[in-house]
């Protein structure tokens, strides 16, 4: 099984990279962009075929290491 984890700064925590990219998009003439957030994607290969088990395990990985929950949120997708 594969887990795709997206980690990004929490709503309300200023994202300096997103802000810089937003500014660059504005300068390039891309109108109508209201916000840009930049995060990171972590792709994990898992041995298990049990989706529930995989979800629980990846959630624990996020809480322990992959995200700093003081400033970051994460979304887990499992296929």
């Amino acid at each position, binding site marked *: 099984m594969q887990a795709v984890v997206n980690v990004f*700064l929490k709503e309300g*925590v*200023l994202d*300096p*990279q997103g802000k*810089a990219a937003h500014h660059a998009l504005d300068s390039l003439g891309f109108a109508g962009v209201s916000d840009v957030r930049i995060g990171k994607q972590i792709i994990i290969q898992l041995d298990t075929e049990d989706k529930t088990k995989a979800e629980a395990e990846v959630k624990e990985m996020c809480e322990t*290491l*992959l995200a*700093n929950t*003081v*400033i970051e949120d994460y979304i887990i997708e499992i296929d």
Partner: protein
Amino acid sequence: MKVAVLRFPGTNCEFDTQYAFEKLGHTTQLVWHEKETLPSDIDLVVVPGGFSYGDYLRSGSIARFSPVMKAVTSYANDGGKVLGICNGFQILTEAGLLPGALKRNNDLHFISKHQNLCVINNDNAFLNQCQKGEVLNIPIAHADGNYYIDDAGFKKLEENNQVLLRYSDSKGKPVVVNGSVTSIAGVCNENKNVFGLMPHPERALEAILGSVDGIRMLKGFDA
């Protein structure tokens, strides 16, 4: 005083830190990150600056799981004094030994320069040789020094005198350097035995290098 200085793969301020404490008359010992125990009879643990584990994932996020950090955590929980400088500050926040987190600087630049700092609180084992409101000139060198804490956490810091230092101008007025919440440059934990700051006091010990203000800061631990 006996000072343990931790060393992770990618640490690069360990020798400067040893030099600083030895200059102040203390003995120091480097401790490799794989050690599961700290030397006996130590009076202080310093987590020095650098780029532990290449800053991969997040600054300090991998180092905090090193075997030695378990020993540091129990040492701190027993009331032992711990100081984290720059990457050391990042490691201590990642480890949950200090509140808040350090994000990428607002302007995305690596900032390396001498910076004025205003002493906010001195009722602790670290800054007791400095005066409240005093301005110190200490080098900074970081890309991830943008201190973040939520409103509730900030309120607790303020109430308990846990804000140690703020980036300031020469008069002590806070200035924006990297985007830190209220220009915070250093904090301590609630029990005031764990300290963290982004600036490098160990680089401000010689007049020929621009400042000797670091001496007064580091002297506090022995007072």
